[in-house]
């Protein structure tokens, strides 16, 4: 069995495959105009024979870019009469509280393409006004006449009773079979009409473009005589079939960042790490995620394109805290002498000043270069020679000069500020969840992750850092380990202890049926899927809920003591208090259906015995650690040649094709049996 994962990022297309028992990797430039070319090129670079592959896993920025660039389809929105402006009004909030020139989220669908129809459900799902089908028939004609490619339908309380939405979908599709139709209850079946409308609109808006893209990709693969399965990485940390991705493209919004965290989760599980923090640092951002018993936390919703004016989505996503600090983040000074790093990034073009492409803005990579922490000749596996002098000039002009610091001092400052910012992100995924960083280990990857990981770990008292094999393309590796996953939710509102058993059972049965239908459609072998139920619980009167696993529906309708205990404990853990005497209520029931991969190729490779390459002599270089005036004469080690059990004492720099690991004085790295670097951090 041969599988490959291809991750198309903004700058690079990464590939990792398990072919004939070996790991293959490649990295090439993304071709924005035709992403399928990047896929083809990376496969060729890795010498993958298409007919020999049994599965291709894929993540792409196509969905998110379509939103950020607002280049989706001409889309219409259909709402309940009286609620045409739900989408435009949103929640009315202004996140930038003091900004008189604020911008609220701008709908992806204009008001003139938003239409009302007569219908109304109440909160219990009872029909107050029947659907006026003649209005819908008339609308179908308008849709055709106005060259509309996609339609989003969101009716009030459709989570409770989707009958009207379904009927509208049938009428529109019958009138125009090519139309891309998204019904809100199919995407997000829970209350909050604005967030549900926004999610539905996003799906419709990106639908036709993503559908075409995936169609082309599949076509291309078939042309190359690929006969295996194609699975698409999704925001919830799982994968789905191409067909499902074409119906729910909104769920592949975060497919890239999530894959690496899934990989880190699997590694944590293999290594028996109870509580790990996945840390991924690339060119423009750093991401952190908490992994408990090998499983990353999942959030129920998030915002695409910035909290203040972005588009909200109400679907599950791996809880990743992302901050604007990456290798390409620009360092700058404000007029009062404060030094800042990011959030602007130089990207790949013009890139760091050291690329010599004419940029005079110093970035984090420039600072690392000036400090001797990265090798000017080995960047991107030697494909990009770096110009130290250009990096020094940029730092002198933009940071050192204005703050009256030396160039090395300023460079160290830039790195330390970036480290401090990233450590706050790591803190946000640990302490904010009530987890003490001292009881965790960090798994660091991404092009720049291993370079900064130890400093960040020290900053917030994480005692152990693990740098896995192939850290530079680890996200693509993560795809090879992701389970198939689909999330379902139904609103079920009521007090624990007074819920009607029949009603509870009906909700569970409905969820199970929906899950089984999806499993069958995606060709998952019957009986191999795992069905896990959770209830969103809270104390009566609270708004925010905590999802607690529910093994048996009777726990909701009968003796709920075990749920009560689990909820109180979780509440105490998160918020520092609990109220065991207060009544509990349920708001939603969730179902998570997963089907683990039938192979364990990537897992096996991650834990199999490490075979080093022939020895390469160590080099020596001056590297600045904590004192810019006193660089340390430091050993430079070639990682692929290091045998298992090798201890590398800091100070040291460990280099490999697509990443560099920095070991500070006092810290010790050990090569594990499987070839991962285990770094003990001196706290």
């Amino acid at each position, binding site marked *: 069995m041969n599988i490959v994962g291809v991750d198309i990022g903004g700058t690079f297309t990464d590939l990792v495959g398990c072919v004939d028992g070996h790991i293959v990797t490649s990295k090439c430039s993304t071709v924005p105009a035709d992403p399928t070319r990047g896929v083809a090129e990376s496969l060729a670079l890795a010498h993958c024979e298409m007919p020999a592959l049994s599965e291709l896993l894929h993540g792409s920025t196509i969905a998110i870019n379509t939103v950020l660039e607002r280049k989706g389809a001409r889309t219409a929105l259909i709402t309940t009469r009286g609620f045409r402006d739900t989408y435009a009004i949103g929640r009315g909030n202004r996140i930038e509280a003091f*900004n008189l020139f604020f911008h609220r989220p701008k709908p992806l669908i204009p008001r003139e393409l938003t239409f009302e129809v007569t219908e109304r459900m109440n909160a219990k799902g009872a029909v107050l006004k029947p659907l006026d089908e003649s209005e819908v028939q008339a609308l179908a004609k308008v849709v055709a006449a106005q060259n509309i490619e996609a339609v989003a339908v969101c009716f009030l309380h459709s989570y409770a009773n989707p009958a009207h939405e379904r009927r509208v979908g049938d009428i529109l599709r019958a009138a125009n079979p090519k139309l891309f139709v998204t019904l809100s209850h199919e995407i997000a079946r829970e209350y909050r009409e604005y967030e549900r409308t926004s999610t539905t609109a996003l799906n419709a808006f990106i639908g036709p473009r993503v559908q075409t893209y995936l169609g082309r990709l599949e076509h291309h693969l078939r042309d190359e005589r690929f006969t295996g399965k194609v699975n698409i990485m999704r925001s919830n940390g799982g994968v789905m079939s191409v067909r499902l991705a074409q119906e729910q493209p909104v769920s592949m919004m975060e497919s890239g960042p999530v894959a690496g965290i899934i990989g880190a989760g699997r590694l944590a599980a293999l290594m028996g790490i109870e509580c790990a923090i996945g840390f991924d640092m690339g060119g423009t951002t750093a991401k952190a995620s908490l992994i408990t018993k090998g499983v990353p936390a999942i959030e129920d919703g998030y915002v695409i394109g910035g909290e203040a004016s972005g588009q909200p989505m109400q679907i599950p996503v791996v809880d990743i805290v992302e901050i604007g600090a990456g290798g390409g983040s620009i360092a700058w000074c404000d007029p009062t002498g404060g*030094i800042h790093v990011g959030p602007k990034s130089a990207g790949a073009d013009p890139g760091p000043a050291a690329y010599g492409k004419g940029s005079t803005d110093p970035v984090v990579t420039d600072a690392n270069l000036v400090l001797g922490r990265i090798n000017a000749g080995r960047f991107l596996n030697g494909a990009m020679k770096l110009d130290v002098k250009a990096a020094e000039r940029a730092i002198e002009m933009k940071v050192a000069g204005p703050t009256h610091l030396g160039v090395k001092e300023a460079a160290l400052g830039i790195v330390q500020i970036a480290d401090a910012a990233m450590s706050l992100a790591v803190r946000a995924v640990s302490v904010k969840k009530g987890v003490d960083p001292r009881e965790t280990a960090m798994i660091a990857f991404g092009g720049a992750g291993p370079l900064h990981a130890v400093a960040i770990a020290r900053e917030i008292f994480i005692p152990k850092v693990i740098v896995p094999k192939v850290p530079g393309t680890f996200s693509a590796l993560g795809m090879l380990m992701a389970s198939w996953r689909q999330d379902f939710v139904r609103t079920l509102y009521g007090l624990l202890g007074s819920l009607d058993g029949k009603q509870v059972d009906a909700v569970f049965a409905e969820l199970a049926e929906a899950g089984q239908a999806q499993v069958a459609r995606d060709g998952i072998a019957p009986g191999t899927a795992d069905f896990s139920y959770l209830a969103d619980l809270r104390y009566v009167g609270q708004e925010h809920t905590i999802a607690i696993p529910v093994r048996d529906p009777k726990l909701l309708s009968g003796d709920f003591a075990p749920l009560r205990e689990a909820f109180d404990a979780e509440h105490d853990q998160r918020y520092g208090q609990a109220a065991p005497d207060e009544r509990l209520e349920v708001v939603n029931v969730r179902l998570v259906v997963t089907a683990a991969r039938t192979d364990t190729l990537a897992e096996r490779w991650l834990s199999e015995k490490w075979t080093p390459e022939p020895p390469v002599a160590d080099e020596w270089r001056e590297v600045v650690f904590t004192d810019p005036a006193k660089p340390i004469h430091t050993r430079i080690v070639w990682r692929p040649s290091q045998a298992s059990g090798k201890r590398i004492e800091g100070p040291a720099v460990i280099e490999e094709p697509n990443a560099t690991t920095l070991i500070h004085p006092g810290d010790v790295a050990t090569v594990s049996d499987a070839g991962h670097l285990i770094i003990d951090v001196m706290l």
Partner: protein
Amino acid sequence: MTRNDAHPITVEVVRNAIVAYADEMANALSKAAYNMMIYEVRDYCCGLIDTKARMISQNRGGLPIFLADLGVAVADGIARYGLKGFAPGDVIIMNQGEVCGQHLNNVVLYSPCFHRDELVGFAANRAHWVDIGGVRQGFGSYGSNDIYAEGIQMRSLKIYEAGKRNETLWQIIRDNTRYPDSALGDMRAQIASCKLGARRYAELIARYGRETVETCIAKVWDQAEASARAVIEKIPDGDYEAESFLDNDGRTLDKPLRVKVKVNVRGSQMTVDFSEMNPQVPGPLNSGRGGGIAGARVAFKALTSPDLDVNEGCFRPLEVILPEGTMLSAKPPSALGLWSVALPTVIDTILKALAPAVPHFIPAAHKGDMGGCSFFGFRDDGSRFLLMNIFGGGWGGRPDEDGEDASVSVCQGDVRNTPVELQEIKYPVLIETHALRPNSGGDGKHRGGLGVELTYQLLQKCKANINLDRTLDPPWGLHGGESGAVNECIIARADGSEVAIKKATEIDIAAGDKVTFLTAGGGGYGNPRERAPEASAQDVTAGVVTKQAKP
């Protein structure tokens, strides 16, 4: 590892950390909160206070009018107990009207923060409790004559003393609110939030040392001050003034209240002078000094450093002249129930005064009120319900673009309306319309944003508080722009009659009555004749302007 005092790098680390701690406090508070005034309206603030009662840092995203004003509450506690009078495990509660200057629902809690045995600061928060007793409930009530009618006052009392709960005080609170589960639940969340903040700040001090941290904080304040001064220097020196009017105090209905402000700019210093502000009024539309200072600070912050975090340094270049006895500096025992109602107008009036001097900094007037409603009564099972919702309106046209539609006031930042579906799940109402209000934005080169139309049908008899203002003095245009539409509220009775209401406390609503709120639009910016034809055409296409363009 040694670190120099106020090394730029350490400063940057401390700058980020102190705000992150306040944000963590806010998260612990809002996620566990029991009333929508906290979890949706975000009517709270959290922060760290030093031993001189100055605001070290404040969370992002709380209510803008809570600007570095937790200090006065803590100062009162320091005066009472002395710096040696606090022990680990203490939690102090404070809402007294005279000192805090706000309605009594805004309850402050704080914990002392110790490093080893030394008191190094406090972690504090303020949150709006849904009920604190008193003669009336729900916001928007005009029913009180003095502070004693508005609920219980607690002045710097220890609800926990060295970790031990004061059961007497706990019982008094429980017995004096209509919603004890909510009040005590919110207090529990507030206390957990304070303890968290105190723990974090102690960790920071343990790490770098008290002196280094405090030096860094001083530096952060200095930088905030310098940023503000740099902006004021761009405003031409001069004496500016403006006035506007609130409708009335809810008692003497034919007497508008004058909001008069003078703004003097000299170099990098700004003075906001409220000497000619309307005197305090019999109705509860007063605030203590804190209200006047908050109004001046919001306007100042929006002008000078909207993107910087809030701390003590931001406001050093601002002087506020505020004699005792005005509507914004009322003497006890004035009623303070609607303390914040005047503030959006106060803030817009300060901005209006400066508009001729810096036209490119200042938008036309926004909707000008806090915008909200409350319905309350008993369900069939005898339990109480209280529906509260906040809604937005139009913002003024801006120098380069139209105003935003349907947004909350300048006094409310990340405040959210309550979802229609949520209201219908929880309360006996059916919402018929939630829409933009066409034609409500003032015409102009850059049009004012639109208000909102929201119609409730009540399914059960109940009462409502209705609280409109600024119906006489509409949201003004600037530089030739026209005014926005004013707030309206219409009750269509189940019996077919109809009545327009501006202010009402505990008005009876019958099952089947429909209550429609039409919120104000923003003023226009610049002469309407200069509006780009394609912009006007788009307004018609989108249906946000339906009337014939004026000749």
